[in-house]
């Protein structure tokens, strides 16, 4: 025997997972933080099940059947749905146009100045400024932007388009950056190290890896924009939201049900297109 066996206690210490204590602490802390939040949000799910609320929700849901299917109403819904889709698409497109340059500026993975050394102060400051701009744009709810723009451009779809454009610039810019940061560093880094520009490294190194995620996220956001434009319809933005607001006020459950079905169809369509494109790009 060349070496004496180590004492068992020392062996145990070597095999102890060094990350375990931190993980345990974090889990306990998270649970402790969750409790006051549940209290603050008055989380009492059992209220849903008492007889009074069951009867109220039952009446509300019962008014949904049968869905309104008369011809005039369907034409109206189709027209409103078209406006809603147009608001969502136009808003998302404008948001995308704003988000792409900000993403390219804000993504540290594509930084020229930080190849082989810590990022220079000026580019780091610029990146921080972009990050704050994105935070500002998406922290203001689109409803608030819409109320602001209604005062500027009047009632109608334009306010909704602008509101979606601003909020979604912030959302898309943030998530695009994060998707790009989570790609494998090797390809874009190698291109930067060999003298490519930032855009060269983006198009030839990062984008091929991130394209499916970027696409499916963008389509998911279109889906969200359809929902947002409905909410803005409630404050006069036109489209399905405005119709739904009126139907709700008239307690016409059947009409609301028809519009909800149209929504489901739009969301299902987005889901289908997303899967199709992901398969194509994978």
């Amino acid at each position, binding site marked *: 025997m060349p070496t004496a066996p180590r004492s068992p206690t020392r062996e145990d210490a070597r095999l102890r997972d060094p990350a375990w204590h931190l993980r345990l602490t974090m889990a306990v802390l998270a649970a402790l933080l969750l409790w006051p939040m549940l209290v603050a949000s008055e989380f009492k799910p059992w209220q849903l099940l008492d007889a009074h609320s069951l009867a109220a929700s039952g009446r509300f849901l019962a008014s949904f059947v049968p869905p309104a299917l008369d011809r005039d109403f369907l034409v109206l819904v189709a027209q409103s749905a078209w406006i809603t889709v147009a608001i969502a698409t136009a808003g998302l497109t404008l948001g995308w146009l704003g988000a792409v340059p900000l993403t390219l500026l804000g993504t540290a993975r594509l930084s020229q100045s930080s190849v*082989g050394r810590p990022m220079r102060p000026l580019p780091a400051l610029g990146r921080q400024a972009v990050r704050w701009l994105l935070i500002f744009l998406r922290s203001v709810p689109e409803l608030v932007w819409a109320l602001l723009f209604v005062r500027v451009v009047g009632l109608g779809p334009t306010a909704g388009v602008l509101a979606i454009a601003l909020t979604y610039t912030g959302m898309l810019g943030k998530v695009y950056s994060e998707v790009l940061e989570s790609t494998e560093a090797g390809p874009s880094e*190698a291109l930067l190290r060999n003298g490519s520009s930032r*855009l060269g490294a983006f198009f030839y190194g990062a984008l091929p890896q991130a394209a499916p995620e970027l696409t499916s996220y963008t389509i998911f956001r279109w889906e969200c924009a359809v929902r947002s434009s409905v909410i803005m319809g409630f404050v006069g933005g036109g489209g399905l939201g405005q119709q739904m607001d009126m139907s709700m006020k008239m307690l016409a459950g059947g009409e609301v049900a028809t519009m909800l079905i149209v929504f489901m169809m739009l969301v299902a369509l987005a889901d289908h297109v997303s899967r199709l494109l992901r398969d194509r790009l994978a």
Partner: protein
Amino acid sequence: MTSRARQGPGQDRGEPDGAGPVGADGAGAAVGFRLDRVSVNFGGTRRALSDVSLEIRPGEQVALIGPSGAGKTTALSVLGAALRADEGGVSIDGQDPWQLSGPALRALRARLFIAPQTPPLPARQRVVTAVLAGRLPHWSLAQALRSLALPADPELARQALARFSLQDKLWTRVDRLSGGERQRVSLARALVSGAAAFLIDEPLSALDPTLALQTLDVLAQTARDRGATLICSLHQVDLALDRFPRVIGLRDGNIVFDRAPAKVSGDDISRLYYNRDTGPAPGTEWTLETGAAPSPGRPSRCF
């Protein structure tokens, strides 16, 4: 295909695309390197490079050998202006890269081609695009975008691939390639780059002995034809000694020897590769007079 492909890209095509002065960038103006007492510290107790001085003349061919973790990759990164040293002077082509302005540093980097050990190729990219990405520093944005839709110069890529017998993989996607094929595709990118110095990190790690020999010869021949400098880190000691006029042995961030292969003895090699845990390299008797094996470090932070 044949004679044309054998000549190699670059020679019969001086100016493949109008944007960059490839002739001026490539053949002719080889790059020289000088490190003066360079140290690199990644934050551990041991330095990745420690007080390394060395000079590599324009057009020279040098092999870097040494055990895993010796600092070969770090040395190549410092030489390639891809990593700033913590201490010491670095001079590439007579200039300190870290004093240059952004555009000048990019222009210098375009003249150096660093090929990392893991082929840096996006899985979903086609081989032709991955190879032509070597031309990016010489392309305008419009050219780069156009080439994404319709590859700008497939013939240039095919010729470069043909040097590594991969010409029929031109339109294949990178994720359909084997590890060895990926490695050679990333070297084909080096060939189209028009760089004046190649800094190649373990180009043979995924190749069988025959391919390794062929690949190394293509690199050396191309560098020689273009008058470009070639610095290769290698684990194949026999190939390093057989194919390179100058071999540098690195261990623990220090240069152990730096001489012509004829003057490198078996003793030098065993000393270089002596492993404190497993003992001398296979087939050697030599032992290092050190104390007990150092205890393996524990990770300081992990999730």
